[in-house]
């Protein structure tokens, strides 16, 4: 029968609608309002997983996010998701779930033999066993362990869903929407504070969801909160971390409850919340008691069994045995009985219990001063052995559900993230949040307050205080639920473990037993942090939320000290697991970083530019309609420049506007050479050093007026150079009258280069005489092309006669096309980054590979650019002995002796004297095929380089077994006299 454990009535599920789902291929049904766990229980499914180490059968232990055992794989294909807690997975129609960590099937799991050899798998087993031989770890042990212990499996396909991040600010953040949370949010909201109320569940209400008599109040609170514009309700949102400066992280499961996210909606959204004040109304989780075989499917926290009955209308068993050390167990027992579950007995470790008489009035057997010493049944509980704590009276009770009420752990996790110390409460035998460190306060059960009415009052008080601390002091009163007198006394007897033979688990997810903790203690791991790491206790994805304290208590007993003294291991984010998608947000794939496009980007696309990412920029490498690869298109473009004329997009160069009466002085201090003497309307090549004397950047800087310069930088260093200038101006030379700003984006800039460059430009430039005398090398002038304002700079990177044409970005395409049109008779072609590189290497201009932060001006042959008079950044450091040592590698040219492209040179090749020599004299920095000399050539940094000009060396590249004979020469392979640029 379908849903055989579903109660006829009650709960918050919608029985009028049926949802179909499968678990391990079996078809089941549930209802809206179910979790996967409640639906599985409704269908009588007990066994839902195998444990991590011993592969023991495991069932559902809790009804919330603290679940240690019921970890399942959700969905299939690209959307499959491992290690999901069935207790928080909202049921939807068509959900596919599978069990994990079992082979070949859940019922018959071969690795469960680990359970029989368990005594050979003690704590620290891996540390002790897989030590030797060392080489076996990577190849044998680790893969073996991973296969055996692996929980779920990740999808191999890319995630088809989208994730995003969002920032939120509020006066008061309330975490948790139980009675305390609702009241806190209402109080703060009514005071006018901006409030965010985050609830991990899909229904707001927390413990109120189990209390039909308070349903009207819950609804009225939610209606009132929805009506306040500055209150934001975030259901399905887990606050996972409390960070410095009152920043909290939360993950909203926007579409996890749907088969596929709706159109234009994300799967999950990660919130970064900056809260002025935070109220932590996170409630408490019930904790278990350690006793032999306390992990059998059917052993459940008493509150969880009550939740399944009251909220989900499901009987977690037919005949329940309740094992308690406090009155909470009685409340659960009564709830189960009211739901029609037979209660076989209440086993109470105490000798006196307030609820005992009421239980007996209900016909329930109560055994005071007793304990459970064993659980019967393998894949499902069939009964328990009990005995008197005084010894004797051992007997067996039949039952298929063992409910454990071991006391309550207030959810102190977020408070602990702030480094607020924990405070021991002897009555509750639990840790409570201590004195706040950040702007937070705990309220309700999280602060050790029990009962709906008391929690609501405590929450309202906390909400008011938080609002007041945020500056909102006038709140409006609202109704709170009346105390109903039926609340159980939360006091517990500090009873943690039944001393009897068998595996008594303290950590169900990592399979840690009480004996493991004692073993850690015997072996010297007596500090809780050491015992935790040695045994892996409370290190699983549930972070020991149910049983962490149990481990501390067992260790305390072994040490002969109090639990308070032993303490808890430090809680750190994340309170609950968060998916990678939530962290990546939108920054996945090509959205990892924004794309920076030049003003000519779309022209390049339309004209077959093949792009390369250079930093954030996309730049055309070369142009090819047939998408050729290899050198052909590069050589074609470079030859066009050497023989005729080419045009290249150089908009990526950094451009900095510098103005002020002291602009010239400022530049003189920045550059190794002088700019204050530069004539208006002229450009000059400049070299900049870092403070440590190494070359920082280079480029041409032009003087536009007496008080205004335009600096160009390399593409890579544009932002760094501007920051360098701003730093120096603000901190070192504030007295200088100078102002700087970037104008990189203002201009589209193109280099027109080649012996026919002037001819081509003369066909389109208006308002400027381009004759060599009127507009010589290093001239700067304004003109118009196609009606657009342009500025021409007669500078050259290729070594050919060249002009850089700058125009406001929005006119870039128009000017570029006008030049192409005008240059048609000269055979103009566009050229890309590869040809640009080829040409500059041939010419011997340095770029990134030479300006690598480890070269000095002298290394690069720029010593004459170091002005004799006047200081400049880097001057002193550049004169340190090591930086002027004659042994430093210096820049030279190298070219293959063989005049062909047969044997290639490579960047990074080492220069040696004999082909088989291991003594490197230096290395090749930049290498290219040459269109000018029709062979491989390049630039190199070689010890005593300039003295070796004329020598023959060997460029060796051992990784590819290549040795090429080269001649050392001037770096200027093309036109060393620099005549062409002045033609």
């Amino acid at each position, binding site marked *: 029968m379908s849903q055989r454990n579903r109660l006829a009535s009650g709960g918050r599920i919608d029985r009028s609608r049926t949802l179909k789902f499968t678990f391990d291929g079996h078809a089941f049904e549930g209802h809206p309002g179910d979790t996967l766990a409640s639906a599985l229980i409704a269908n009588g499914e007990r066994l839902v997983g195998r444990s991590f180490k011993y592969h023991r059968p495991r069932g559902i232990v809790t009804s919330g996010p603290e679940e240690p055992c019921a970890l399942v794989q959700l969905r299939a294909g690209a959307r499959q998701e491992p290690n999901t807690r069935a207790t928080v997975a909202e049921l939807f129609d068509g959900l596919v779930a599978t069990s994990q960590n079992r082979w070949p099937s859940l019922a018959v799991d071969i690795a469960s033999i680990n359970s029989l050899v368990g005594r050979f798998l003690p704590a620290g087993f891996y540390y002790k066993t897989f030590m030797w031989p060392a080489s076996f770890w990577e190849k044998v042990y680790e893969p073996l362990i991973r296969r055996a212990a692996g929980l779920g499996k990740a999808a191999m396909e890319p995630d088809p869903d989208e994730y995003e991040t969002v920032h939120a*600010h509020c006066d008061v953040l309330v975490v948790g929407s139980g009675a305390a949370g609702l009241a806190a949010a209402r109080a703060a909201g009514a005071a006018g504070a*901006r409030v965010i109320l985050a609830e991990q569940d899909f229904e707001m209400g927390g413990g109120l969801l189990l209390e039909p008599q308070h349903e009207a109040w819950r609804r009225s609170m939610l209606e009132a909160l929805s009506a306040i514009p500055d209150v934001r309700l975030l259901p399905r949102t887990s606050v996972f971390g409390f960070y410095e400066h009152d920043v909290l992280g939360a993950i909203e499961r926007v579409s996890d409850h749907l088969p596929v996210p709706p159109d234009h*909606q994300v799967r999950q959204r990660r919130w970064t919340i*900056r809260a002025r004040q935070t109220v932590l109304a996170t409630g408490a989780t019930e904790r278990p008691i350690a006793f032999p075989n306390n992990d059998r499917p059917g052993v459940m926290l008493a509150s969880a069994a009550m939740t399944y009955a009251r909220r989900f209308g499901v009987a977690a068993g037919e005949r329940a045995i309740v094992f308690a050390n406090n009155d909470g167990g009685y409340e659960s027992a009564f709830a189960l009985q009211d739901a029609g579950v037979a209660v076989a007995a209440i086993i109470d470790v105490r000798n006196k219990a307030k609820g005992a008489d009421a239980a007996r009035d209900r016909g329930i057997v109560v055994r005071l001063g007793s304990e459970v010493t064993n659980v019967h049944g393998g894949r499902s509980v069939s009964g328990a052995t009990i005995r008197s704590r005084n010894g004797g009276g051992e007997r067996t009770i039949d039952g298929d559900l063992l409910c454990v009420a071991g006391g309550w752990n207030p959810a102190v996790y977020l408070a602990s993230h702030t480094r607020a110390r924990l405070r021991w409460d002897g009555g509750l035998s639990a840790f409570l949040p201590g004195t706040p460190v950040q702007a937070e306060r705990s309220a309700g059960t999280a602060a050790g307050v029990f009962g709906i009415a008391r929690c609501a009052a405590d929450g309202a008080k906390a909400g008011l205080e938080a609002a007041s601390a945020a500056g909102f002091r006038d709140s409006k009163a609202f109704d709170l639920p009346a105390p109903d007198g039926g609340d159980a006394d939360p006091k517990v007897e500090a009873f943690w473990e039944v001393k009897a033979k068998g595996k008594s688990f303290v950590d169900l997810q990592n399979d840690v037993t009480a004996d493991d903790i004692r073993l850690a203690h015997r072996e010297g791991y007596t500090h809780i942090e050491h015992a935790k790491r040695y045994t892996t206790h409370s290190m699983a994805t549930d972070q020991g939320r149910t049983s962490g304290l149990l481990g501390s208590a067992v260790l305390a007993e072994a040490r002969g000290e109090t639990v308070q003294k032993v303490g808890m291991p430090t809680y750190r984010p994340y309170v609950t697991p968060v998916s990678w998608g939530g962290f990546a947000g939108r920054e996945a794939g090509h959205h990892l970083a924004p794309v920076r496009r030049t003003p000519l980007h779309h022209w390049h696309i339309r004209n077959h530019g093949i792009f390369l990412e250079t930093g954030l920029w996309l730049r055309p490498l070369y142009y090819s309609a047939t998408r050729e690869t290899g050198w052909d298109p590069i050589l074609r473009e470079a030859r066009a420049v050497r023989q005729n004329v080419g045009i290249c997009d150089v908009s990526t160069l950094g451009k900095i506007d510098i103005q002020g009466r002291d602009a010239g002085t400022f530049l003189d201090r920045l550059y190794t050479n002088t700019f204050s003497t530069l004539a208006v309307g002229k450009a000059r090549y400049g070299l900049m050093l870092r403070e440590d004397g190494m070359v920082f950047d280079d480029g041409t800087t032009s003087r536009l007026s007496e008080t205004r310069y335009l600096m160009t930088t390399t593409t890579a260093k544009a932002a760094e150079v501007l920051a360098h200038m701003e730093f120096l101006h603000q901190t070192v030379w504030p007295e200088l009258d100078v102002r700087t700003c970037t104008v990189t984006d*203002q201009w589209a800039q193109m280099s027109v280069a080649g012996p026919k460059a002037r001819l081509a430009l003369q066909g389109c430039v208006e308002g400027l005489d381009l004759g060599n005398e009127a507009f010589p090398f290093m001239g700067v002038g304004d003109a118009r092309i*196609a009606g657009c304002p342009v500025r021409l700079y007669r500078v050259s990177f290729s070594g050919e006669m060249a002009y850089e044409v700058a125009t406001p970005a929005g006119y870039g395409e128009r000017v570029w096309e006008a030049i192409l049109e005008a240059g048609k008779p000269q055979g103009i072609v566009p050229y890309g980054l590869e040809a640009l590189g080829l040409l500059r290497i041939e010419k011997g201009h340095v770029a990134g590979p030479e300006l690598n932060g480890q070269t000095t001006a002298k290394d690069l042959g720029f010593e004459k650019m170091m002005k004799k008079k006047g200081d400049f950044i880097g001057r002193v450091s550049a004169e340190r002995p090591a930086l002027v040592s004659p042994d430093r590698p210096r820049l030279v040219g190298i070219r293959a002796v063989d005049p062909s492209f047969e044997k290639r040179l490579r960047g990074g090749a080492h220069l040696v004297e004999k082909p088989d020599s291991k003594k490197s004299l230096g290395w090749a920095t930049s290498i290219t095929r040459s269109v000018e000399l029709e062979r491989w050539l390049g630039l190199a940094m070689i010890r005593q380089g300039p003295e070796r000009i004329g020598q023959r060396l060997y460029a060796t590249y051992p990784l590819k077994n290549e040795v090429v004979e080269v001649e050392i020469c001037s770096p200027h392979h093309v036109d060393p006299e620099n005549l062409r640029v002045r033609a």
Partner: protein
Amino acid sequence: MSAPERLSPFGPEFTPGRHGASGGSPVTLAERKVDIVQVMAGRGGDAAAASAVGSVLPGPGKAEIAGSSMTVWIQPSGWLVIRPRAEEGALARTLASAAGDSVAVVDQGHGRSVLRLSGPKAGDALAKGSRVDLHARAFPPGSAATTSIDHMTVTIVKVDASTFDLVLPGNFSEAFVDWLRMAAAEFGYEIGRPA
């Protein structure tokens, strides 16, 4: 001589139309056709700058908005002057000659772009990338903040309760819209004509 029409920095795909989720009130985005000039006063140059700009120069975190013109504080003694688009370069020339030597005037009309974002959900879309608190109490109309959104430097100016002008680096204009399309998709968005 006036220059020809310029290409939009937002690229060829930024054309009028409705995208993303349907219904509700979409976020609208449109390029603003403006001139933008960066004004940087030297020591003691604030008065000259104010007189050249012809209005009160706003302090840190503020923008002075008058109709479709605005002056936005972007740095100590530094502002962006934004006016409806007129003759190419004219605004920069006028301001430079009016302000004199103590003020640096730099034309950024092509170096920056301005995107107008409006609708009740405009702030919610921005919050997906901006850490700035855009709530009316923290950021009333006339507020301005320069921040980083998806690694891009963006100056956010609040024009009215549901309207923002975003000043973007010209070369990142397309990339910013790429990001904004994703951020606004759940609300639906409408690209309007440049204005």
